[in-house]
């Protein structure tokens, strides 16, 4: 077989160009060593039969398909747990035991009754009992307010979250469009794909999503397994509206491109939005309900026992707490009967009118309430109910922390697997760079040798 000198030059040229492109790919990888979501590019070479040379057939972007799906799921879990963390941590502190805690206030209130037994006519002791009752009422109300505040505050963050989701979905849709155009023009759209992957990942921190890549590298994003958030170049929008049906908190609607909308508030799971909705509509209302029941049971049972007794003025049938109108809102509206602090004579210490002054038998009846199972649907004493609420809050916080830690560590492992497949290794790129550099030098040598051969021929 005879090979022409021109062909040799072509061989050298193909080697130079291909290695140059390899150096460019390795350089791009090195430059992006710290770029979040950047997938390593591989330069693919192939022997070129035409000039016995080399051609750089393609630059491939590495992918880690199966890991990606799991990463999205864990991102959702982690963000959901983190969204609940602040509110739960604040409740963890509110329910913590110590001086001035709910349990402490309850104990001290009953303790003032115990002390009043020794001198039921003593004005100071009576005032003290009313003051401790007021402190207990204040603490119950403050706890209810704190729960409600956390509900409202977490609800407010939905506005920002929804806005960000809308920005992301429309960005993904427009990247879909760009990618289809770039690919249509025959180029690779790797940068746009990297950007789109990052956005999909960020989207999964807001809502639980599933994605798949269809023809033409178009990504479809589904919410709740079926509802499309992004399909080709079109994205649906979320809308948060204050709704009386949600206690004047926000309802989330999915608004399709066609204008059709429907309420998806209760379908939201995972991610910041799902986490907040669960906190707002399930976790916090359960705690508030428990507190309302506690306040209702305390006020009604205490009133019932108090009403049978007689005050210092010999009058019976008086309430101690303002009678609650119902369980809902009992905690936040709890109060002592009006003007009790100026009329401590109303405290019904005795069980009969003749013993109105100096009798203390009804105080014993009131004290008995402390040990009766009157709270939690008559299953627990008042103090056990508080201890129970404390452990519920503790477990909620703990369970949420476990989800956050677990998903973070799961994510860490998945990221490690993904990075292992698609990340950039400086060592590897340095070796590639050196390899391509040597290849480039070799290509140059081919040209130099061919030139020398030309010189030999021409000097004949």
């Amino acid at each position, binding site marked *: 077989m005879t090979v022409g000198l021109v062909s040799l030059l072509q061989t050298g040229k193909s080697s130079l160009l291909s290695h140059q492109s390899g150096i460019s790919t390795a350089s791009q990888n090195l430059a992006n060593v710290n770029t979040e979501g950047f997938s390593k590019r591989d330069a693919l070479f192939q022997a070129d039969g035409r000039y016995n040379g080399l051609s750089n057939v393609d630059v491939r972007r590495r992918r880690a398909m199966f890991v990606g799906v799991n990463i999205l799921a864990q991102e959702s879990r982690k963000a959901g747990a983190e969204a609940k963390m602040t509110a739960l941590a604040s409740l963890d502190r509110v329910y*913590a035991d110590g001086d001035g805690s709910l349990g*402490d206030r309850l104990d001290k209130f009953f303790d003032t009754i115990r002390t009043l037994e020794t*001198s039921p*006519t*003593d004005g100071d002791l009576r005032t003290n009992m009313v003051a401790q009752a007021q402190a207990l009422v204040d603490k119950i109300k403050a706890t209810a307010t704190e729960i409600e505040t956390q509900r409202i505050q977490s609800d407010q963050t939905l506005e920002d979250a929804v806005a960000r989701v809308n920005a992301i979905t429309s960005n993904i849709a427009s990247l879909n469009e760009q990618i289809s155009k770039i690919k249509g023009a025959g180029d690779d759209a790797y940068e746009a794909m990297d950007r789109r992957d990052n956005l999909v990942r960020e989207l999964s921190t807001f809502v639980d999503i599933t994605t798949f890549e269809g023809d033409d590298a178009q990504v479809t994003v589904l919410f709740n397994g079926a509802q499309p958030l992004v399909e080709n170049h079109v994205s649906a929008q979320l809308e948060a509206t204050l709704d009386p049906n949600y206690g004047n908190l926000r309802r989330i609607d999915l608004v399709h491109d066609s204008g059709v909308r429907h309420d998806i508030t209760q379908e939201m799971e995972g991610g910041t939005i799902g986490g907040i909705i669960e906190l707002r509509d399930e976790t916090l209302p359960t705690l508030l309900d428990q507190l309302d029941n506690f306040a209702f049971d305390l006020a009604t049972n205490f009133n019932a026992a108090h009403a049978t007794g007689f005050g210092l003025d010999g009058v019976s049938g008086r309430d101690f707490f303002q009678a609650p109108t119902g369980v809902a809102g009992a905690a936040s509206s709890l109060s002592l009967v009006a003007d009790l602090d100026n009329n401590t004579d109303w405290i019904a210490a005795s069980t009969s009118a003749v013993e109105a002054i100096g009798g203390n038998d009804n105080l*014993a009846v009131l004290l008995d309430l402390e040990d009766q199972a009157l709270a939690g649907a008559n299953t627990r004493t008042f103090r056990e109910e508080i201890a129970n609420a404390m452990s519920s809050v503790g477990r909620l916080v703990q369970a949420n922390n476990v989800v956050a830690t677990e998903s973070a560590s799961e994510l860490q492992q998945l990221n490690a697997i993904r990075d292992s497949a698609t*990340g950039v290794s400086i060592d590897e790129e*340095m070796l590639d760079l050196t390899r391509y550099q040597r290849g480039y030098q070799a290509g140059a040598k081919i040209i130099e040798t061919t030139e020398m051969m030309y010189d030999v021929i021409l000097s004949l």
Partner: protein
Amino acid sequence: MRVTESQLQSLALRSLSDNRVRLLDAQEAAMTGRRVDTPSDDPTASARARLLGALQTESEGYLSNVEYGELRLQQAEIALSEGTSILVRVKELAMAMANETMNAEQRAGTATEIDELRRSMIDLAGTKQGDEFVFANVNSTSTPVDPNGNFTYDVDTFFDSRQVEIGPSARGEISASGAHAFAQRTANPNSVDVFQVLTDLSAALNANDPAAVRAEIDNIDQAHGQVVAERSKVGIRLNRLSIARDSAVQARDLYVQLESDLVDADASEAFTKLTLADTALQASITVASRLQGTTLLNAL
């Protein structure tokens, strides 16, 4: 397996931040001396500690009731003891004056002394602790016996002494009964009105009637017996309070101990954890600084 830069970075970051969290927890436990601060630190332990805290408050309450009751009963005991001495003196005088050899003048002089002793007795019945009358059976804000020695309330209706909570479902009496000590009650046919006995004795002396004086001696014995009986009841009540105090103190100390076992950090454990966490963080820092240093870049 390929090892990439971002893997190394996130490994270093994670191990540093994990160890920082551990160190913070260990520092917190070592500094506050508490293992359980908020319910989430240990939900079960914090709920149990809450109940133990409630029991502590309750025990403290029992203790304060016991202390108050002891003060009150001690006042009553002193008064009843003086009352006993008065009645002993009264009996001595009565015995002496019952003697036929005594003359009218001597008896009249003794009658004056008896009147004086009667006033002392009335004062004793009006003994106060703070603002409250110790021998009042219900209404402790007004004196049980007026200056003339008449009871201000119906002694047949009001004779129980005041009870307060001194232990779990235990109620103890913290006052003495004026009705039992000083009054004539229908329920007890042998009982006498102590002040009336003294009035009668004084009258008999003034009337210079030795037989009548002699006749009062039985009543004086009965009065003495009544006061002594109430005094011994006070003693029993004090005894009961003392037992209640011991159990309340023991219970409180036990609850404090149990709560501490649940929520307080064991000092040696806390400091061991602190040292471990500190060492682990140091190790992470050393490893992280090395990770960043070694690549092919340094060699080429």
